[in-house]
């Protein structure tokens, strides 16, 4: 079951914050976050198991509410280098190993 992401797209000015949400109708084993720049392969940002929060590189962090099957990616004080498409991927508890990605959120940071 493909997870749902919101928003579809967001435009930020440098220094602004953004939140990208990911949700599933299935019980989740893990939530993954990847960033893809135009014409390149996706690159791993972080993975969350069970509930809680995690800090990643730069000022990017994420949370996972296991009970609600929801995860959020937080981008703080955005930089031009944050631009790209962000994908969440999920492993369901009934079929982990199979990583299903959401449709992506396009993030553009402008000066």
């Amino acid at each position, binding site marked *: 079951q493909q997870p749902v992401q919101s928003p579809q797209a967001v435009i930020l000015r440098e220094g602004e914050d953004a939140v990208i949400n990911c949700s599933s109708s299935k019980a989740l084993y893990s939530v993954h976050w990847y960033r893809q720049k135009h014409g*390149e392969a996706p690159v791993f940002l972080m993975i969350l198991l069970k509930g809680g929060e995690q800090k990643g590189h730069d000022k990017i962090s994420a949370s996972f509410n296991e009970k609600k099957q929801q995860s959020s990616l937080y981008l703080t004080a955005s930089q031009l280098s944050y631009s790209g498409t962000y*994908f969440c*991927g999920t492993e369901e508890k009934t079929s*982990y190993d199979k990583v299903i990605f959401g449709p992506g959120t396009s993030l553009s940071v402008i000066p």
Partner: protein
Amino acid sequence: NAGVTQTPKFRILKIGQSMTLQCTQDMNHNYMYWYRQDPGMGLKLIYYSVGAGITDKGEVPNGYNVSRSTTEDFPLRLELAAPSQTSVYFCASSYVPGQGALRAKNIQYFGAGTRLSVL
């Protein structure tokens, strides 16, 4: 360290032709995946493998076949290519030892992709 290598980088096929997309990794990863990404869209899982000799279907397996005879290689076969298979194909691998509470995190490393056009 080469990581995940995909060949070819680009290919144009005629309708009905067949081809094999190659994927090899030199990180001794046990898990390997094939995804397709249509223009402006997300990643769709085609097939995946948790070890040599083991493969399983993903979201969109129709029109494709895979095999995993070695840990390093995970080729994707397209039979009777159709315009709907025009896409960018990404291979990924991860190292996931252990099971249950001892299972490691499934961090995927992607290859650079193969851009395929079927005309």
